[in-house]
C-alpha cells in the first residue's frame, strides 16, 4: 500500500482545541482544555470514568458544543450542520461509545447503509474483510458478540476511508482476546497513515496503541507525553507492592536504597524502585526491624496506571 504524503514541511495539526470549556448543570465536564493531535499520530485521552473524555471527544466530533474555546478539525471549524460540516464529515470516522445499530439488520446491510452516506470509500465487502467479519456477513447485528459488535462499529467508522478516526472507549467490556484483535485493527489503520484520537480507561491500551497520551481527570489534562516519557517521570520503572500484618511506619521505607517513592494504598503499600534486587532485601530488613511480618509481595513494571495513581492518589477504576 502507498504511503500517504505526510512529509509536508510545516505539518498543520490534524486536530486542535484551545481553552475548551463545557459546563453541565451539576459538573464542569471540561475545564480549559488544550490539545493538539499531529497528522498520522495516534493520540490517547486516558482517564477514569467521568474525567470528561467523552464530552471532549464529542465536542471535537462536532456532536456536542462547547461553552467556550476553539476547535479545529482537519483545518476546519464546526459550523451549524450545513454543507461545510458535511464535507468535513466525509473525512471523519467516528465510533461512539454505546451506540447500537439496528438489531434486525445484517452486518452487510448495516455497512452498506452507512457506506451510502459517503461520496467515496471502499467497497462494503472490503471493509467487512478488513475487520474480519466475513463469516458474520449475513448475521443480524442482534446476534453478534460484544467483540464482533465493536468490530462492526469500527467497520462503519472506516467505511469512508477516513483521514481522522475518533474512537470512544473502543474495547470497554471486551474479553482480552477481542481486545487484542481490535488493537491490531486500529494499529493497521494507523500504519496506513491515518490519524487517531481515542479515549480509554485501560492504561495497557494507551501504552500499546498511542504515540502520545494525555492523562485527564476532572475535565483537565494532568500531564501529556509519550507513554515511555510519562512512565519515566516516576523516576524508576519497577513497582513493588506489599502488605504487612499490623501497622507500618512508611517514612523509613521511603528512604531505603533505590526507592524513589513510597505510597500507602487501600490496605497495602507500593514502592517505585529502580532496582528491585537492591530495594527488596532492604525492605525485608526494614520490616524485620519494625516487627511487621510480610503478608503479600509482588512486583511489576511501572505502567501509566502508576503514573495516574502518582498524580491523583486514586486508581483509574476507582469510580
Amino acid at each position, binding site marked *: 500500500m502507498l504511503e500517504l504524503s505526510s512529509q509536508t514541511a510545516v505539518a498543520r495539526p490534524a486536530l486542535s482545541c484551545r481553552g475548551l470549556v463545557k459546563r453541565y448543570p451539576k459538573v464542569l465536564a471540561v475545564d480549559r482544555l488544550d490539545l493538539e493531535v499531529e497528522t498520522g499520530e495516534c493520540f490517547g485521552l486516558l482517564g477514569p470514568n467521568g474525567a470528561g473524555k467523552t464530552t471532549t471527544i464529542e465536542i471535537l466530533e462536532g456532536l456536542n458544543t462547547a461553552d467556550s474555546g476553539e476547535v479545529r478539525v482537519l483545518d476546519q471549524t464546526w459550523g451549524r450542520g450545513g454543507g461545510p460540516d*458535511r464535507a468535513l*464529515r466525509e473525512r471523519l470516522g467516528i465510533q461512539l461509545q454505546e451506540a447500537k445499530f439496528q438489531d*434486525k*439488520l445484517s452486518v452487510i446491510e448495516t455497512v452498506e447503509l452507512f457506506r*451510502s452516506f459517503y461520496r467515496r470509500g471502499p*467497497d462494503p465487502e472490503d471493509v467487512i474483510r478488513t475487520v474480519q467479519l466475513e463469516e458474520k456477513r449475513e448475521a443480524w447485528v442482534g446476534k453478534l458478540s460484544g467483540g464482533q459488535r465493536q468490530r462492526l462499529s469500527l467497520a462503519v467508522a472506516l467505511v469512508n476511508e477516513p483521514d481522522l478516526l475518533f474512537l470512544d472507549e473502543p474495547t470497554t467490556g471486551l474479553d482480552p482476546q477481542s481486545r487484542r484483535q481490535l488493537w491490531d485493527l486500529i494499529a493497521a489503520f494507523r500504519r496506513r497513515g491515518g490519524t487517531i484520537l481515542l479515549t480509554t480507561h485501560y492504561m495497557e491500551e494507551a501504552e500499546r496503541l498511542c504515540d502520545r497520551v494525555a492523562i485527564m481527570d476532572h475535565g483537565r489534562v494532568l500531564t501529556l507525553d509519550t507513554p515511555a516519557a510519562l512512565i519515566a517521570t516516576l523516576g524508576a520503572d519497577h513497582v513493588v507492592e506489599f502488605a504487612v500484618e499490623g501497622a507500618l511506619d512508611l517514612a523509613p521505607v521511603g528512604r531505603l536504597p533505590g526507592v524513589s517513592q513510597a505510597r500507602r494504598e487501600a490496605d497495602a503499600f507500593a514502592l517505585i524502585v529502580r532496582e528491585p534486587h537492591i530495594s527488596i532485601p532492604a525492605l525485608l530488613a526494614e520490616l524485620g526491624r519494625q516487627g511487621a511480618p510480610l503478608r503479600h509481595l509482588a512486583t511489576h513494571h511501572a505502567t501509566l496506571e502508576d503514573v495516574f495513581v502518582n498524580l491523583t492518589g486514586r486508581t483509574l477504576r476507582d469510580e
Partner: protein
Amino acid sequence: MSERDASSAPPPARRRGAPGRLARNALWQLTRARVLSFLREPEVAFWVFAFPVLMALALGIAFRTSGTPRSRIGVEQGPGADSVAAALARSADLEVLRLPPAEAEAALRRGRIAVLVRAGADGPPTLVSDPTRPESRLAQLATVDALERAAGRADVARPRAEPVVRPGSRYIDFLLPGLIGLNLLGTGMWGIGFAIANWRQQRLLRRLIATPMKRSDFLLAMLLARLLWLVLEVGIILGFGALVFGTAVRGSWLAFALVTLLGTLAFSAIGLLVAVRTRTIEGVTGLMNVVQLPMWLLSGSFFSAERFPALMQPLVQVLPLTLVNNALRAIMNEGAGLATVAPAAGLLAAWGLASFFAALRWFRWD
C-alpha cells in the same frame, strides 16, 4: 472505490441485493433498512396485518345479519308460566327461554335476555327490563303485542311491510372503514414515533448525524417506508372484506387513495411530533397512548361518532381519525367522490403539515 493492491486482493466477494448505483443511494438504503427491520419483527407484522383481519372476522361474525333478528326474552318458572310462555312462543319476533327464578334475574342482568316475564297467579304478567337499552325496549313492545293478541286483541289497521336490505348498510360495511382508519393511526404512530424514540435511546440517531447523511433523506425514508406499508395493510383489509363479507369501495378510488394517503401522512407526522424529544421507550409509549386514546374513544371506529352529545361534536369531528373514518365510509358505502371528501382531505393535510413543521422545529437527534 479504493484501489487495492492486486497481489493481496482476495477474489471478489459474491454480490447480492441491489445493483451498484442504487446501493450507493442514501435514500434507497435508509428506506430499505427501515422496511427490512420492520418486516423482521414478527409481532409488528401481527399487529399490522393479522390483527385488523381477525378483528373484522370476529365482529363481522358477531354482528352478522342472517334472516330477521328475534328478541330473546325469559319467562320465569312459576304458577301460570306455562300458558304465558305458550302465548309468547307464537310470536315470530320472540325467542322464549324458560328460566328457574334463581337464574332469571342473572340472565337479565347479563344481557342474555332482553325482558324477563313474571306470570302472576292472577292478573296480567309483570315485564322486567332496563328501559335505557334499545334492545329491551324493542323486546318489550313485541312481548306486549304478543300478550295482547293472545288475550284476543284484533288488529285494527295492519300496515303493509316492504322489506329492503341495502348493500353497504350492514355492520361489517360500517366497521371495515373504521378498522382501516384505526390501522393507519396505529402503524403511523408506532412505525414512526416508536422507531425514532428507540433509535434515540440506542444513540443510533447520534451515530447517523455523525455521518454526512442528509437529514431530509432520513425523514423522507421513514415516510416512504410508511407508504409501502400503507398499500400492503389497506390492500389486505380491503381484500379480506371483499372476499369474506362482500364489502366494496362503491365511490371513487382516487378519493379513497387520497384519504388513506393524507391520513397516513397526518398520523406519521403526529407520531414524529410525539417522539421529538422522548429518550425512552416507556416515555414514548405513554405519550402515544395519550394521543391515541381520545381517537380510540371518540372517533367512531366501532360505532357512529354521531352518538356523542352535540356539545362534544366540534371536537369529535376534527379529530384526524374521525375525518378518516367518516370520509372512508362515505367513499366505500355511499359512493362519494373527491368533492365530498375534499373538506376532510384539507383538514387532514392541515393536521399533517402542522405536526410535521412543529416536529422539525423541536426535533432532537440525541
